[in-house]
């Protein structure tokens, strides 16, 4: 069963390094997301797996088959890799109908005409476009086009599916529906999937594992929860959502925890885990910060701004000369307040 192994990929265009030693493994039937800002190397990595980019160094293998091994001089042409891929632009051939688009990979594999017709109908039904086989791509809506692209990618039952920002051309509402629907399809077909996106909601909602990338490196590799709650790198923490960073001196605390004393929190914040250095930075999500009325326990603070965002309020709070963002479900009046960072809410980052 296929398992995608990527080892030490390196690539540079002139003096800019695009891939700086990328390595990861996607297990069978796993959904792995490459998440990062534009230019981080995620699409280049995906296109290297697909065979449209050649890395300068590194190995890519799927199952027993080596796609790329620069040392051994192996570089399998894209057309012999037998992958399903959905491009950001969908890349539907405009001169072919929906059914012809989906049948194309089958006809290349010399599938018997009747069998091909049946398979096309089956796949189109799967993406709920059974009635649209005779239409041309431009006669479909964006969401429908996206599903045709997916149908074409899975038409000949490839074991590996590559998705290059497939939702970026859809509007917000459609995007959420397409997301649930694709995840469901991936699970039921048992496809090993690599998904590229810069949208953290997509990444968190769909993936078995998320790889956060920046500047051609993988900064964090883990489940959605792990990556979100223990980002380890400042960039990862920031990319996955709003975050406060507090820097100060570290002391060892009780039960293997640490105590971080910062100018705003001279009493110290309890952070899980030990830290070697005398100085450290901890990240705290705004929703983990406890913002209370002026009579409660905690550090003296003052609420500067408040914004109502539907399911919560966002506050900008001042402690001395420092500013902290806090999210809370309840309304707190501007002016004096108390603020607390409960033990375990903060985690160390680089």
């Amino acid at each position, binding site marked *: 069963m296929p398992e995608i192994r990527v080892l030490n990929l390196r690539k540079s*265009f002139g003096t800019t390094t695009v891939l700086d030693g990328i390595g990861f493994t996607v297990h069978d039937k796993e959904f792995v997301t490459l998440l990062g800002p534009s230019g981080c190397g995620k*699409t*280049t990595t995906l*296109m290297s797996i*697909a*065979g*449209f*980019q*050649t890395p300068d160094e590194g190995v890519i293998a799927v199952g027993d088959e080596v796609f790329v091994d620069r040392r051994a001089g192996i570089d399998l*042409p*894209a*057309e*012999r*890799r*037998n*992958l*399903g*891929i959905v*491009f*950001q*632009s*969908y*890349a*539907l*051939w*405009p*001169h*072919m109908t929906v059914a012809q688009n989906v049948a*194309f*990979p089958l006809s*290349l*594999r010399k599938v018997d005409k009747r069998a091909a017709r049946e398979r096309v109908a089956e796949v189109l039904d799967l993406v709920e476009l059974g009635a649209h086989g005779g239409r*041309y*791509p*431009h*006669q479909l809506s*964006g969401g429908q*086009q996206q599903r045709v*692209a997916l149908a*074409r*990618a899975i038409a*000949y039952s490839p074991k590996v599916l590559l998705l290059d920002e497939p939702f970026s*051309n859809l509007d917000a509402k459609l995007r959420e529906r397409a997301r649930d629907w694709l995840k469901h399809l991936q699970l039921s077909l048992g496809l090993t999937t690599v998904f590229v996106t810069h949208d953290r909601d997509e990444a968190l909602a769909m993936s078995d594992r998320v790889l956060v990338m920046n500047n051609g490196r993988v900064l964090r590799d883990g489940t959605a929860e792990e990556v979100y709650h223990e980002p380890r790198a400042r960039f990862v923490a920031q990319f996955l959502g709003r975050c406060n960073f507090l820097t100060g001196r570290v002391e060892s605390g009780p039960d293997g925890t640490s105590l971080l004393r910062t100018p705003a929190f001279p009493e110290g914040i309890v952070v899980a885990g030990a830290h070697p250095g005398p100085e450290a930075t901890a990240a705290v999500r705004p929703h983990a910060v406890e913002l209370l009325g002026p009579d409660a326990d905690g550090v003296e603070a003052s609420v500067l701004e408040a914004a109502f965002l539907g399911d919560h309020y966002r506050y900008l709070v001042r402690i001395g000369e420092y500013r902290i963002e806090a999210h809370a479900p309840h309304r707190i009046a501007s002016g004096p307040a108390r603020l607390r960072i409960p033990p375990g809410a903060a985690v160390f980052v680089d």
Partner: protein
Amino acid sequence: MVTTLEIPAAARRPRAPAALGQALVSVLVVGLVAGPFIPLVYSSFRSKPVYLPGGVFSLGGYRTLFADPAYWTAVRNTLLFAVGTTVLAVAGGTLLAILCTRTNMPGRRAYGLLLMAPVVIPPLGLIVGWTAIYGQGGYLTQLLSRNLHLPVWNLASIPGMTAFGTVVTLPVAYLTVRASLSGTDASLEDAARSAGAGLLAVVRRITIPMLRPAILNCGILIFALCLEILGIPLFLGGPSNIDFYASYLYRSWNQGGTPDPPFVSAGAVLLLVVVSLLLVVRARLSGAEQRFVAVGPRGGGARRPLDLGRWRRPASACVGAFLTVTCLIPLLGLVLMSFVRVLTTLVAPWHLVTSDNWHAVATDPALRRSITHSLLIAAGGGAVSVALVAVAALIAHRSRFPLRRLIAPALIYPRAVPGVILGIGFFWTYLMFTPGALVRNNLWGEAIALCVRNLTLAYVVIQPSLTRIGEELDRAARAAGAGWWHIARRVLLPLLRPALLAAFVLMFITLLGDYDPVVFLQKPGTEILGVTMLQYWSTGVQGPVAALAVLQVVLVAVVLGLGARALRRVTVADA
């Protein structure tokens, strides 16, 4: 504390000045383009040339034309030539465009540029060069037939002229297909390869079918160009007396018992109708192209091109050989021809070296005049045309002037109709409508005809750049209180500077080499390069014509070089 600066409200500009200026420019453009066709049609329905008294309405012109067997021979030749040339040029241009843009053929970038050579080499230069090498008395032809006793080709035949026509029109197909290729998302081909398609399958099933509109489009354009071609039958067909449509009109005009007979106008009108119909068909077809527009392609970075495998080098060698045979050798032949008394394989060329040809160019008053005149028209006419087209394009696309929709077709039309027809039209217009000899029998008339004919080229360079300038820029300027002319002068024209410069360079090059519309207008004393070369060539003078052609090529190269440098400066200054 914010201080409020007291600024007077923008003066309410009266609407009249903008509208008046726009009206003047529009009327000028539309009038210049449409004007020549009215007297042309009128004169085709007269019993006598309009300058003779006593002419009445008559279909005699058309009757004479249809009764002339030479006319039908010319029609047949033209059709044979046009079909052959179109098929070969479209096939070759498509193949070369795919090779140069989508594959990993070595040298594809350099070839991509060199393939445009036939566009910038002055047309007559290339013809003379081909004659010098591949013509009946040409160097290579002689070498093969006399010295090696091998069977040879005949350039003065319809297949021979088709071969040359293919070389001249191939860049049209190449450019159209290349533009279409670069406009489509390369991931369409990547998707096919992911689906398992090899090189040939991708090209055959994805690339070429998607190019169908572009292929059809340039096919019709090339066919229309072939119908009006004049230089090829005059220079190459001369020895065998093979006439094409345009050369039939040209000869009949010059050799008839009465000068300027109505049946020539009739022939011109018929050709005009055919070509116009072709263009209507083409416009209709391009309207149906919508389904070939792929969904919004986003930049996908540098993708790996199609791998030609072991055909990489052979393909590259073939393209190189093609360029060498069609452009490089003829250009060398042209240069050689300008430095020898006669180009022959019987005597080594260094025994025949002479500076007579160049001496003639430097001293013969008619030749000297034609050089100065051509340079004057190219520089002055080019500048004026670009200015006029720039303003007209702004009116057409960035104004609310009521008649603005007429302008774009008016700017496209002159290049779409055969040059000889435009020339005949201008001849009658000058004769019938202009008081005295205002523009008749002088350089002004020729300059106007040449410039009007090539307005289209300036427009096709300027228009795409204009559409890339967002309309918000106009709106922002209008919100700030600027009127239309103000916006044009301060916002749009400065932003268009690179396009204006490119348009001028293209106009200069074209005006230097073009001659079709002037062959009916030139009189002694008003020579321009192209027509002079044509006339000298037809009397058997070859050396000086080659020298003039070399001069043209050198001038074009210099202007292209200067233009490229200036363009870089303008673009850098803008960045």
